[in-house]
């Protein structure tokens, strides 16, 4: 009824190829941005920031990064946790070495360093594919965690091997450490997420993104039509690494504040982000958001309902969480193997015809 193209005339190529071609969609998108930037910062509290919104924003960035690699370029990676650790440790070393530099710069540089490391571990992808590549990236995961545990230089020789985020600010506003106000940490992550999402969206529908998808769909055919596999695969690793590095840096500096590499960036983290991408939808930016929201929010909601509302024992609720999340993942993959993004797409198609389907 209200969700359709009728009357929404496109008079230029720019208008025709914009991200949200339907007017309703576009306004909804502006509204989300408006609420995210202008309403939530004024109403946020510590609980919402640290328990719900920060993890959601940060995991969304990681999921976008991994989605570029797995969903768009078709290179399976199980090294996300390790790459996030690179971002976190790079950010930590930069923060402690150059305390006067803005956190924006540190986080960007941490992303850049992770991109380099990611490219390095992406080099084998030129020769190995599919499951074998997954194993190679799995090696990266274990190697990186081992390095950060093993080499004391990375954690500034602290006795416990932990890294702790010192207090740093952006334009005089403290954004790391315990005294950082909730709205500042939230906005900082939101800005990075917005930039990352816009970059990712525009990369994936341009030349680079098309070459990634060509490689994903059939690499030999892509090579024959003139896509350079070296360039395509390594750019995918680089861009993906950049995003994952940013998420790792934010995860450490803003969200947790203190990190122990084996616990925070272990193999479970790699799987968690991979699940987000798969549940959300491979090859979809929206899917990354949906997947991150699903896996971050669901446990919290189940906990609130189980413990606070129903008053069940905490261990029962924790076990139920595993059962319910697991069951929902299986259910989703059976009902819609292409993830939440596909559900959303189908819903939109239906909405366009509603209330008069043919």
């Amino acid at each position, binding site marked *: 009824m209200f969700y359709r193209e009728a009357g929404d005339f496109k008079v230029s190529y720019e208008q025709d190829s914009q991200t949200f071609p339907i007017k309703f969609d576009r306004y909804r998108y502006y509204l989300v941005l408006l609420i995210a930037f202008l309403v939530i910062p004024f109403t946020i509290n510590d*609980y919402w920031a640290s328990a719900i919104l920060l993890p959601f924003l940060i995991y969304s960035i990681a999921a976008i990064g991994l989605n570029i690699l797995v969903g768009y370029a078709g290179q399976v990676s199980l090294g996300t946790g390790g790459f996030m650790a690179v971002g976190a440790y790079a950010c930590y070393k930069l923060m402690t070495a150059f305390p006067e530099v803005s956190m924006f710069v540190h986080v960007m540089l941490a992303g850049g360093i992770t991109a380099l490391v990611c490219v390095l571990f992406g080099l084998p992808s030129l020769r190995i594919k599919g499951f074998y590549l997954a194993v190679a990236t799995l090696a990266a995961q274990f190697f990186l965690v081992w390095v950060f545990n093993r080499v004391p230089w990375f954690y500034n020789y602290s006795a416990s091997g932990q890294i702790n985020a010192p207090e740093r600010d952006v334009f005089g506003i403290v954004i790391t450490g315990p005294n950082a106000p909730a709205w500042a940490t939230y906005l900082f992550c939101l800005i990075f997420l917005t930039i990352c999402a816009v970059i990712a969206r525009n990369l994936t529908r341009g030349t680079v993104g098309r070459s990634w998808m060509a490689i994903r769909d059939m690499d030999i055919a892509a090579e024959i039509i003139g896509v350079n596999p070296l360039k395509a695969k390594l750019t995918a690793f680089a861009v993906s690494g950049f995003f994952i590095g940013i998420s790792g840096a934010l995860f450490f500096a803003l969200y*947790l504040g203190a990190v122990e590499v084996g616990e925070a960036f272990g193999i479970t983290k790699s799987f968690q982000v991979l699940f987000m991408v798969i549940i959300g939808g491979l090859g979809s930016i929206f899917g990354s958001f949906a997947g991150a929201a699903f896996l971050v929010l669901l446990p919290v909601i189940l906990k609130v309902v189980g413990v606070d509302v129903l008053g069940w024992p905490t261990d029962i609720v924790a076990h139920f969480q595993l059962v319910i999340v697991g069951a929902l993942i299986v259910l989703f993959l059976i009902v819609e193997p292409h993830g939440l993004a596909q559900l959303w797409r189908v819903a939109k198609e239906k909405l366009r015809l509603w209330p008069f389907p043919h």
Partner: protein
Amino acid sequence: MNMKLTTLALGAVMAAGPVMADLVFPSLSYRTGPYAAGGIPFADGYADYFTLVNERDGGIGGVKARLIECETGYNTEKGVECYESTKGEGALVYQPLSTGITYQLIPKTAADGIPLHTMGYGRTSAANGKVFGNVFNYPANYWDGASGIINYLLDENGGDLKGKKIALVYHNSAYGKEPIRTLEELAAKHGFELTALPVDHPGQEQKSQWLQIRRERPDFVMMWGWGVMNQVAIQEAANIRFPMENFIGVWWSGAEHDVLSAGAAADGYKAVTFHNVGRDFPVFDDMQKYVVDAGKAAGAGDQIGNVLYNRGMYAAMLAVEAAKTAQEIHGTADITPAMMRDGMEALEMPEARMSALGMPYFGPSFNVSCENHGGPGLVGVTQWDAESKTWSLVTDFQQTDGDVIKPLIEADSASYASENNIEPRCN
């Protein structure tokens, strides 16, 4: 602003609570995950003691204690969620039972002004109250544990460990790495040779470490393990026929579930401790009467008297006594976290007080002061008897090597203070 998700999303469910404010004690427990075997008895003991105080004494100074349990699964992210969701309820003291979560909460609790009690875990240098104003780790810390083990070995070997080889099997995390620095100092002082063997989380895979022990034949093996790692290590030690009486764990590696699975082979295994073991205390009669028989025991109620249950109960007892001290200092029954902090700092725990609580010689006698948040560091040794399936205290609570530990605490806390621009207190 401080409305919880619950109240926001699902209406005022908690509104039915009593009008009079409670004393809130959050319990960041873990009854699930790879470390649940240790988390469950501790959480049960912690909860049961508060139930006992409420049922028997009508609360602390007339005010009921309210325990909010939150499941962390030993996971730092869930720990953050638990901390944020409980701190708004007026939490008086946090005891997360996880070194990883402790590291996260040290700066957060400092900013929020809530005391943190990490009994026998966490950041060792928090014992320096001049730098860590709201963190307490009395009655003993990891470095006391390390020194306690070495002291015990010194006693056993006529005061001489020169040329002996001692291996440390440790959980490869902040927790397991804590004692290494102290042990290196002690190795230099007493002339023994230290080999450190890391075991990665969760610790089921230890074949290569024990192969190395078998090859190098150390005289003694120490263990800094937790969760499933303990059982596996003791089983592996039994497999290579390492003499159990030469195998000593820290207090987190010395509970019933750690040794039971190895059966008779675990007989003679030792662990250091900072509290007494067993059920032979008058407080357990009250526990039976007011809590167990009344059907109010936490969890399955099958952990009473276990080593870690006693530890959880001991932690709760110290919290309750600190709250009482705070009530005396400030002359009000309804204390705030800041008052609770003062109470913890002024806590005195002489033998007479423990006896009056029905817990004679349950832990070492100690006083907390502004400078010293770690207590005197008195550590005893327990030994496992596989025949009767009991732990028993084989030494008294003895003094640890303050000459080695104090300078290390000073150095580590000084670096924390300079990193975070903290002015020393207590001047």
